[in-house]
């Protein structure tokens, strides 16, 4: 009798299961990598290229067709130009079909006429070069009617210039520009201030709010819902409300401060240098304290109440119970929240962009991506900033996974 041995390797069933798993995951993997992985690679690629907003439209030949002259001297004119002033376009051709009823005369050099089909081969078009083709014609009937007919039929032009995106020339110019001068360190400092204080503030406020609601009373659900409002409302709505509220001319907050005698004249909350940064940080705290509040409350309600009963028996005072029981129990969720919120605040773009547009010393790294790419219209430099952000995130996520695998067993 042969002794029974446990099966080794992967069996047929396990293989089938793995295959099914990958089939189910395939659509997600494909779509996510198309929209996440591919753009990430693209942005690294672009960051090494001198790529500006205007390069989004590669140089191309532009043509205009018109019917000119009158009587015997009737002619069709094609005016062709290179849309770019610097870059040459290769393989420029033009083809068009002359409308019926039009008889063309003699056709000059780069063009040939085959029946009603016109074909011109220009070869290369230098930067800023213009070409003009005149074709004398005769028409049967009213020239005015033909004018429309001629101008309606769009000629086909081919020809393409080199795109900056696809060639293999790389430069570190973008990074040099990004790291150049004090600006970068200023931006980094602002980002760190915003991230650190925004995160800590939201955590502390969340903890405070959770302590308030960690008991059951009538209307607890309602108040919990109310305190989530800042997070649930669309960011544009609350950001514009804050801007309106703190407006130096028609803002209620300023009117209130002046009336209460706390300030003699209106304060430009989102327009002055250190104040604007503090205000956007306060906004961040205001908008995201509900999130930490929700998490901390959920953790608090799962703490075993018998511990508190035991503490009561031992005569522990409320503060002692908070410091010696609640805080150690909450430390895990607090640190996970801190890490997550830190990364998310670091990534935040919408809030600052809507509140100040990155002015008055509130430009963080993410806002800088937008500023470089669209305000200065240098997409390459924007991409370089984005790569810097990615580097920071990779560093954060190392810490995060090291930590979270210990905390949550992920």
């Amino acid at each position, binding site marked *: 009798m042969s002794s029974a041995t446990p099966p080794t390797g992967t069996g047929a069933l396990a293989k089938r299961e793995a295959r099914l798993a990958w089939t189910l995951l395939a659509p997600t993997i494909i779509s996510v990598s198309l929209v996440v992985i591919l753009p990430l690679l693209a942005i690294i690629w672009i960051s090494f290229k001198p790529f500006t907003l205007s390069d989004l439209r590669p140089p191309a030949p532009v043509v205009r067709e018109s019917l000119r002259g009158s009587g015997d001297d009737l002619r069709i004119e094609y005016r062709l130009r290179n849309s770019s002033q610097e870059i040459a376009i290769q393989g420029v051709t033009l083809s068009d079909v002359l409308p019926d009823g039009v008889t063309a005369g003699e056709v000059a050099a780069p063009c040939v006429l085959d029946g009603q089909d016109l074909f011109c081969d220009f070869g290369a078009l230098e930067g800023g070069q213009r070409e003009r083709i005149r074709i004398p014609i005769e028409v049967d009937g009213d020239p005015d009617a033909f004018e429309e007919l001629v101008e309606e039929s769009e000629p086909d032009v081919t020809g393409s210039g080199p795109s900056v995106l696809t060639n293999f020339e790389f430069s570190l110019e973008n990074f040099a520009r990004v790291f150049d001068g004090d600006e970068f360190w200023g931006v980094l400092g602002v980002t760190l201030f915003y991230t650190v204080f925004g995160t800590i503030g939201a955590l502390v406020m969340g903890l405070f709010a959770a302590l308030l609601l960690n008991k059951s009373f009538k209307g607890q659900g309602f108040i919990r819902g109310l305190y989530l409002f800042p997070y*649930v409302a669309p960011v544009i709505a609350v950001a514009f409300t804050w801007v309106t509220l703190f407006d130096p001319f028609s803002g209620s907050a300023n009117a209130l401060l002046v009336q209460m005698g706390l300030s003699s004249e209106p304060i430009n909350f989102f327009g002055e240098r250190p104040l604007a940064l503090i205000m956007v940080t306060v906004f961040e705290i205001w908008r995201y304290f509900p999130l930490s509040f929700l998490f901390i409350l959920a953790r608090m309600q799962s703490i075993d109440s018998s511990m508190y009963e035991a503490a009561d028996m031992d005569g522990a005072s409320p503060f002692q119970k908070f410091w010696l029981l609640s805080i150690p129990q909450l430390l895990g969720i607090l640190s996970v929240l801190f890490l997550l919120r830190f990364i998310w605040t670091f990534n935040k773009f919408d809030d600052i962009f809507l509140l100040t547009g990155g002015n008055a010393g509130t430009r963080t790294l*993410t806002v800088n*991506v937008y500023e470089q790419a669209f305000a200065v219209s240098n997409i390459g430099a924007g991409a370089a900033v984005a790569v810097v952000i990615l580097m920071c995130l990779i560093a954060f996520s190392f810490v995060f996974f090291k930590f979270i695998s210990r905390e949550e067993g992920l």
Partner: protein
Amino acid sequence: MRKGYITGPVLGALWMVVIATTIAVTMSFATGAAFRPQVLLSLIWGAVAGLVYVRFPARHAPARLGVSALLGLSCLTGFGPVLIGSDTTLLALLVTVISVALVMHVSLAAILKELPFGELTRHEYEDAVIRFCTGFGYIFFTAIVIIPFYVMVMTSLKSQQALLQNPLDFSVDLSQGWALLRSYTELFRDFNFGSYLWTSFYVSCLTVFITLLFSVPGAYAVARFRFQGQKAFSRSILLIYMVPMIVLALPIYIAFSLTGLRNSILGIVMIYPVTTIPVALYMLQGYFRGLPTEVEEAGLMDGLSRLAVIWKITLPLSLPALASVSLYVFMIAWNEFLLAFMLLDDPSKFTLTRGVTMLNSSEIPRQHLMAGAVIATVPIMALFLGLERFMTKGLTAGSVKG
């Protein structure tokens, strides 16, 4: 410190400042007239009240009622905790006096309870401090949450001149009738907001649908099957969470410009689900893990295929989770601003958030902007309040994402 005659006045003084400020701010926002809390006088009045409240520990002792009434009346003289401006209506005056007296008595009695005059035990002292902090916390959080939304709604009902004249005056003239809502009618009539509302709605619904279509099978596979790379996959979902949208938006903008997908709803519908699939996947796999496998195994034994098990057993069991995920994804799609802002330029294709951004210009009056903000906020709030239980669950499960 732990003496009744010290704790009482200190808490009373601080509490008086809180109450005076709250009432002054509330009355200012309600009437637009001048109300000013007087910090120094409030401290003195509060300390006196606190002393009286610990000296006479009965809940509604006549001395307690007397000092509170005195507090309220003192507001009429200019030496009270709240200074009332001269141009105030009689009604507002009366409301202020009564509310100062009443609120102060009720809340101070609740905070100090029957605190003895002399030595306090550690418990008595800490409980009183905690009751003070709780009261302060409720007032503080409610104020910071409500004030911006109150300003948003009220500003949308006012006219530009009224706003500039007195930014504090939010009193609404109800006799105008429907004319009160003129900002809204103008938005819907002249700015095409009806169409934006509809675009936002169906884009969000499509996003929810596509997200579920992709993430349900994916989450099931991650939760139930053992295969190589499962752990790496779970981690990479979390990693994708962490990539900032602006970094992705830049190449997406370029790609969409080159392919002509920019400025089309199709492009938006293609891109929104991909930003929400990782969140949904993460939330759902957590829920699927919690479902008992025995039910599914029973189904398998009875001859159902895996896909049939998912369709007939797992999905009906996870309806609450699906509702939470749908709501959460709907919220993300509805509130999404950055992609809509970058990818849509054509006013006929705007989503609501993009439409509101358009209103933020110096030529368009503020109340229009605020009315737009209200229009964007109300549907999501209604959904939130109606389905608060699901929403809170969804938020807790998925809001690793900011």
